[in-house]
């Protein structure tokens, strides 16, 4: 599904953010990318979204070279990918319901679809009673669950979760990971970046370890080892 072909990225001369990365992620996988801060995890993810351009190499999403896309096609690509961020990136002046409705409106869903799907997905992440709350009226865990609900509402083929549990306590972390596993079980590819050892050890799926921009380990059913 995703192919990295000798991708390198330099932000400044002394350090490589990505150093000749080649890897393949197939549909339906649950891939965890681990590594210290600055190992290149976020840069790797930005490449998939074409949010950043590499100095060398290419990234394919299926047969599409993501760096050759025009503005409109890029929007279409991003609609096929749901993204969850460490800092949630919710629309602060919109309620939980409206945050999700907006993502549906953006891809041109009808009012009927929105009215039937939004309560459903909020129930899935256990936020039905917070439907008309604004993000600032919710806890960190609730905000992240809302962000996940928004990421999955348009049935993307791929979910990218960039440090989704970075700001959360143990219980909330556990809940978020359970939700991501459930999404993966339903057939959606999930890419998760984290530096939380407990999270990785509990998932028992493929682990890619990065250090200084290089992929140093790629285990099919890995543990967090650095």
């Amino acid at each position: 599904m995703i192919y990295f072909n000798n991708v390198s990225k330099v932000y400044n001369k002394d350090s490589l953010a990505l150093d000749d990365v080649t890897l393949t992620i197939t549909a339906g996988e649950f891939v965890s990318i681990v590594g210290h801060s600055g190992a290149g995890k976020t840069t790797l993810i930005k490449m998939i979204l074409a949010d950043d351009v590499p100095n060398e190499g290419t990234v394919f999403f299926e047969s599409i070279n993501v760096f050759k896309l025009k503005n409109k096609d890029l929007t279409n690509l991003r609609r096929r990918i749901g993204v969850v961020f460490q800092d949630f990136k919710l629309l602060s002046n919109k309620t939980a319901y409206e945050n999700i409705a907006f993502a549906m409106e953006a891809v041109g869903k009808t009012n009927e679809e929105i009215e039937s799907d939004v309560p459903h997905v909020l129930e899935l992440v256990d936020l039905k009673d917070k439907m008309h709350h604004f993000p600032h009226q919710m806890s960190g865990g609730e905000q992240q669950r809302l962000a996940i609900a928004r990421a999955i509402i348009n049935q993307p083929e791929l979910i990218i979760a960039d440090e989704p549990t970075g700001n959360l306590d143990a219980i909330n972390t556990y809940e978020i990971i359970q939700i991501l596993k459930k999404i993966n079980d339903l057939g959606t590819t999930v890419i998760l970046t984290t530096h939380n050892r407990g999270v990785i050890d509990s998932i028992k799926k493929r682990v890619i370890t990065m250090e200084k921009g290089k992929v140093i380990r790629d285990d099919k059913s890995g543990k967090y080892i650095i």
Partner: protein
Amino acid sequence: MMMIDLKRVIKAGFLNFTRSGLVSFAAVLVVTITLSVITGIILLQAVLNFSLNEIKDKVDVTIYFNVKAPEDKILSLKGSLENLPEVKEVSYVSAEEALRLFRERHESDYPTIQALDEIKDNPLGAYLNVKAKEVSQYESIANFLKGDNALVLGSASIVDKINYHQNKIVIDRLNNIISGAQKLGFLVTLILIVISIIVTFNTIRLAIFISKEEISVMRLVGASKMRVRGPFMVEGAIYGAIATIITILLFIPTTIYLGRTMTNFLGMNIFSYYVSNLFQITVIILLSGVSLGIISSLIAIRKYLNK
């Protein structure tokens, strides 16, 4: 599809407006100030034009004829004057009429009336009162009368005097003042409007700066540029529309007050001018306010959309 997007954009714009509270209030306030400046200038221009017209109307050239001048010759001169493109109107006052006006004017001046009665004959000649369309045109009218023109053949002999040359200095000076006042008025208007537009633009830019996180998130979620831009443009239009209503209402007590206190000084009632031109004024400031809001939003948001 287009309709539903439009509806969503408009709804989102209204929702943003009500939820932004203080920011919306500030933006409306600044747009209101801009529109008040524009309305104030419209009224000021009206007063200025009115006063200038009043003054212009008081300027004229009078041609006095000899006592013995035959009426048909005077009337034929009147006819040829009326044919001049510069002339607005010519009024003829016959010798008898002139005498009657003179008597009226000096009603209480007993010695003068007595002297007049003693003469028995009418000592006054007829005269023509000429009004030009523009103050600057009196000179060419005077030249026309001076010249040995075929149309006015023989009229030189019947003309006693023309008071243009006595009025010339006053007319010239007035001419300068009028054109100066108009130029200055235009310049002041332009500067004031430019300043208020810049202030409004900056306020709206600030309002959008607050939302820059939102804008990038909207793009991330896959919203099209128009879908992100739309609600801000609607918000801008709402600023303009509400500011228009406030400005129109604000100027009612203001003009009533000015109408009461300044009518004698200005020579016109601002309140009645305001009321009789309310429709045009509303259209002008509504269009200015709404387009100012929309264009400012459009320019301000461009910076964050292209990231």
